[in-house]
């Protein structure tokens, strides 16, 4: 599983961090950092929740 961010859409609003803090974090400037872009299978559900939570549809998962 690979997490892909469309950086031209991401606005750093942090919804993904709330859904999956293991995978996403906003830095001190509110810029998104992906903590782990190839997470283990047990985090799939959280990763999918993060994708759903992004209001800019900036996130996707590649198998």
């Amino acid at each position, binding site marked *: 599983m690979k997490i892909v961010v469309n950086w*031209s*859409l991401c*606005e*750093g*609003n*942090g919804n993904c961090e709330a859904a999956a803090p293991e995978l996403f974090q*906003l830095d*001190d*400037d*509110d810029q998104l950092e992906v903590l782990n872009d190839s997470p283990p299978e047990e985090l799939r559900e959280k990763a999918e929740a993060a994708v*759903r*939570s992004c*209001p*800019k*549809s900036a996130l996707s998962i590649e198998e």
Partner: protein
Amino acid sequence: MNAQSPIGFSYDPYARDVLKNPLPYYRELLENHPGYYVEKYDMFVFTRFQDIIDVAGVTDDNTFVGSESTLPMPAAITHKNDGPPPFVSTNPMSAGIMLPSPEYEEMRLAHIKPLRPKAVAAIQDMVRDLVLGRLRELLPRGRFEVMGEFCGLVSAAVTCHLFGIPKSEAQGVLDAVNALAVYSDDKVGVDTPGMYDQLKAHIRPAIERRRKAGADGEVALIDGLINHRVKSDGRALTDDEIADQLVCSFVAATETPPKPTSQGLWMLWQNPDQLAEVRKDLDANIPIVTEEILRLCITNQFAIRTAHKDVSVAGVDIKAGQRVLLGIYAGLRDPREFDDPEKFIWNRKINRVLTFGYGQHHCIGNNLARMQVRTMLRAFLEHVEEFEFDMDKAVHAASYFHWGWIKLPVVVGKYSI
């Protein structure tokens, strides 16, 4: 499948009957008419939660653009487009909401900094002080109007902060924004071009002030745009172009957080059992109840886009030049997404949020809005033990833009501050 208007039901978002009470129309649209076609505006209406996400989620290649405004006056969309309409000018830079990509994103990112989560968290104490200041003045009166006198003045002061305008001008800002939202029988809509001119008269001096002060980033909303260089040609933006990017935030920051806050308090007052539950632990419960208030107590109805490409989405074939209406208010009441959707349940499970729209135009102020609503609710409930709304004196607006209460007088019993 292109849904045809069936005999016996017709929906026109601007019709007087709909403005008076859109709820029965939304119920019928939700139940029986996905992708409902309105001939008069050559427009498809989407009310189901998932359909709105699907349509608003088409964010690539300028398929949908706010090129005819996202909240057009009805007269602006009664002509049929023969193919895609032209894009608005990007030199000079047109109002942000109408821009195509990539300029749309470029302008947003140039001023989004003070609206991001940590920047918003950093002004929470200031907002709490504003709220307490208002309560100290209002509570001893025993009776006041929640929407304007309490919430409206708080939000207007936050607008002042965002724009680097002295907070002493908050009342003037509030009056200017409210003046546009006065509805009468002969004025159903928001005259967007007129509104832009009037509000820019307030915004332009703020921009001039920032230029004089050196635009060092302290008022990041404006300074970000002053310091921005347009990617395509490297030029700086004029004051007028900057003002055009900020009108929407000026209005929204002033008038939208008060609506769910005061209608949410009204909702809690009508449900005393739920209010008692919430009061048990304000720290834990305010963020939870805020989400249900933001689902059921907002007033903005919908947003419109124009298709610039043929696209098939949410079961409808849409041709370039046709319009789509995203029925956000209706979608928040979709039984496919929420059980017993019209019922206020303070701690209901909310899996997905549509309050702030979705996709490209998703509310730039969503963090600020949430923080304001939470802070105002929290302080009111903490300091006011007994309150009652005087609904005989309440005023309701009929409008396609905002539908809901615009004046909510409250009578205060026991309080402490």
